[in-house]
């Protein structure tokens, strides 16, 4: 029998290198033999890694509650990835978005605001976006909008902007600085191919194909981000919203941001950073350096986990029940602690809620591990 050569993909190699570094560092940190910054170099050298990634930050375990105790915590909610279609194609996703709206409106007390996590529309069509806008109007709490690639590539965001305003912006709420990024820019793959706007949109919506480019925040927006952050003290809690995960999970599905390392490097000096992202439609948890990452649930459909690159901290939701179109879907609330770190509460519609706490991420998964989601079996 012919042996199949073992080929590792670019993302596997990337993640293996990163894992090696992280493990080496964590060990050194635990034993306390030397300062972590020296440890990073030592671990890199011992692992034979030639090019440690620039964004990599020494592990710093944050203590909860070490910030200004006078500042109370607060809660915001999210709804994400609703993928509304034209009327005659699909109305199930509309009903599911309405369910999320009802869920959030039933929260007592009401959240301070609601983040919409992108991909409101399926194919960026004006009627899809208008329908979504109309539905989101019935939310009682104020809404902050984020754009996703399904909203964008028909008219490059024209309709979306006319409904919801700028795609990149920041705001302060209580003691936290919030940043909303447009992380799903793509390199121009359409002009040279003579694609129509609809072709372009369908290609991007196809997700797993070799034609489109990988998502990126882009140089211009990275500059904006630097400027937006430069006045802030490093102790200010920062929460970033991006549609795609701001790290590299699985390239073929664009569960990926090409310039994630550069963006992480910009965020790295800040002591408390959380990134909340949509796009992956699953319970997803990661921590890189001192940046916490939480994936948002979709209201439309759950994606399976990618075959490679799943962050080690992620407690997977098991396979959604194919007989239950609502299984694996939901919305969520984010509880922001007084110190600016967050607990992400996954409100899975047909399962028990899952609370992924800041202490779980900060401890590298050693404490407060969330329970695995259980769906009753037949």
């Amino acid at each position, binding site marked *: 029998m012919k042996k199949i050569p073992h080929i590792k993909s670019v993302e596997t190699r990337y993640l293996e290198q990163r894992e090696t570094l992280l493990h080496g560092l964590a060990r050194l940190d635990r034993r306390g033999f030397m300062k972590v910054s020296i440890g990073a170099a030592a671990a890199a050298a011992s692992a034979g890694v030639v090019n440690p990634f620039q964004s990599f930050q020494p592990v710093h375990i944050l203590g909860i509650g070490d910030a200004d105790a006078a500042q109370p915590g607060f809660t915001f909610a999210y709804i994400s990835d609703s993928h509304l279609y034209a009327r*005659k194609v699909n*109305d199930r996703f509309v009903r599911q978005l*309405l*369910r999320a709206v009802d*869920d959030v409106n039933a929260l007592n007390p009401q959240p301070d605001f609601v983040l919409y996590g992108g991909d409101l529309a399926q194919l960026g069509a004006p009627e899809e976006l208008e329908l979504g806008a*109309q539905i989101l109007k019935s939310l009682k709490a104020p809404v902050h909008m984020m754009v996703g690639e399904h909203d964008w590539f028909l008219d490059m965001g024209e309709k979306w902007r006319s409904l919801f305003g700028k795609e990149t912006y920041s705001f302060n709420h209580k003691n936290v600085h919030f940043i909303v990024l447009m992380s799903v820019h793509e390199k121009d793959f359409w002009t040279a191919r003579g694609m129509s706007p609809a072709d372009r949109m369908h290609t991007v919506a196809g997700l797993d194909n070799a034609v489109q480019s990988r998502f990126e925040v882009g140089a211009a927006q990275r500059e904006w981000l630097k400027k937006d952050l430069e006045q802030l003290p490093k102790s200010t809690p920062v929460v970033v919203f991006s549609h795609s995960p701001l790290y590299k999970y699985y390239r073929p599905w664009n569960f990926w941001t090409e310039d994630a390392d550069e963006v992480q490097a910009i965020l790295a000096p800040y002591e408390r950073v959380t990134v909340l992202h949509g796009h992956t439609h699953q319970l997803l948890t990661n921590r890189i350096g001192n940046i916490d990452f939480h994936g948002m649930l979709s209201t439309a459909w759950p994606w399976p986990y990618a075959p490679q690159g799943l962050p080690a901290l992620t407690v997977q939701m098991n396979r959604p029940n194919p*007989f239950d179109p609502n299984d694996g879907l939901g919305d969520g609330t984010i509880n922001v602690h007084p110190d600016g770190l967050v607990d992400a509460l996954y409100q*899975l519609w047909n*399962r028990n809620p899952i609370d992924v706490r800041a202490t779980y991420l900060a401890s590298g998964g050693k404490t407060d591990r969330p329970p695995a989601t259980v769906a009753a079996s*037949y």
Partner: protein
Amino acid sequence: MTKSNARIRLTVATGVATLVASLAGAAGSAPHGALDMQAQQQRLDGLLANSDPLHPANIDPKIWLEVVSAKDNALTPERVALGRKLFFDPRLSADGTVACATCHDVSRSFSDRRNVAEGIRDQLGRRRSPTVMNAALFQVQFWDGRAASLEEQAKLPELNPVEMGQPNGDAVVKAIAADAQYIAMFHSAYGRAPNYPDVGRAIASFERTLIFLDSPFDRWQAGDAQAVSEQAKRGFDLFNTKGRCASCHMINGANPLGTDNRFHNVGVSARHQNFEALATQALGILRDKQGAAGTDAIDKLALTTDMSELGRFMVTKNRADIGAFKTQQLRNVAIRAPYMHDGTMQTLWDVMDHYNRGGETNAYLDGGIEPLALSEAEIDDLVAFLFTLTDRRFAQENEAAYTAQKARAAKERPFRDEALAQRQVLPFEQRVFGKPTLH
């Protein structure tokens, strides 16, 4: 048998209401519309005449003993006999008018053919009495699954204020403890004096003998092509495909009941409920109640208050379960009208209409409930299939029910909504845009 058959035949032309009246009323000396207990037992003897209650027909004996029967309550003839005596004994209730067999009447498909049950002092409950037939094969009991076993289930109605109204288990035991026959039967069944847990065990043992799975459908599945009509065969195809029924009601050798043993909001109670307010109220009441106290509290809330409509939510306190009820079995469904947990649907045509329109819209509607666009002919096929699931021992009743339901459906179809079923009107549009948009 001939006497009751004659009664059934008489009612064929006049509909379900008369059928109920004649079955219950002719010999109807028992209170609350039940057939006299002696007459019920005679009828039961007729039904079980050629079967071995310890090894029901159509169930593999190994599966029966290892999977179905309880570990701490092995099935014995003594336990079945005791359970049977208790099942038909109205002394178990506070005023002596209600036995298990009052609402689980042998002559009324082991149920009561009412929208909701009627207990002592003519009090009405909030839910449809489920049939005891094949109940042993459910994974959990009650519409909301609050009892994990038949043994647990059998100890709750006695203590519910609107059912049998006893203050506690001791009062139930006291009501029968002086009866020398009971004392002897308890000793031979469980080797001890009468006590409440054994009341539950004995009734559960008797209920495990009420297995009715011998239907034309099973004969067709086993290879007899003539056992069901061509229309019913088309109906079974629709059941598994366009009708989407099999998503929850998968029925085959491995799932003989046709239930997934799960809980779904199919939009039955949504017509007249404010789920949010009810859920908040229920959480307030149930907050500090754990274990048996919790089950007890749920039992009372479920039968005496509007919170009944929360269904499974009261057990799990999970918002996903608001308005969700257990997927009912399909066995003998044709002779078990009215339908749904609140008995609001009178015919299987109504049930098809309800699902065809995509249920009643509400925030917690199960994701699988969608408009089905079934044609009238397809609905008839599906109903024909459902009538093949009746045990052959009820063949006459089945025929009568078909005629009665068909006549009623010809007169009124209150749940029929063609525009919703065909997606000409989408319920969300009314909500989002304030008016339905016709396309």
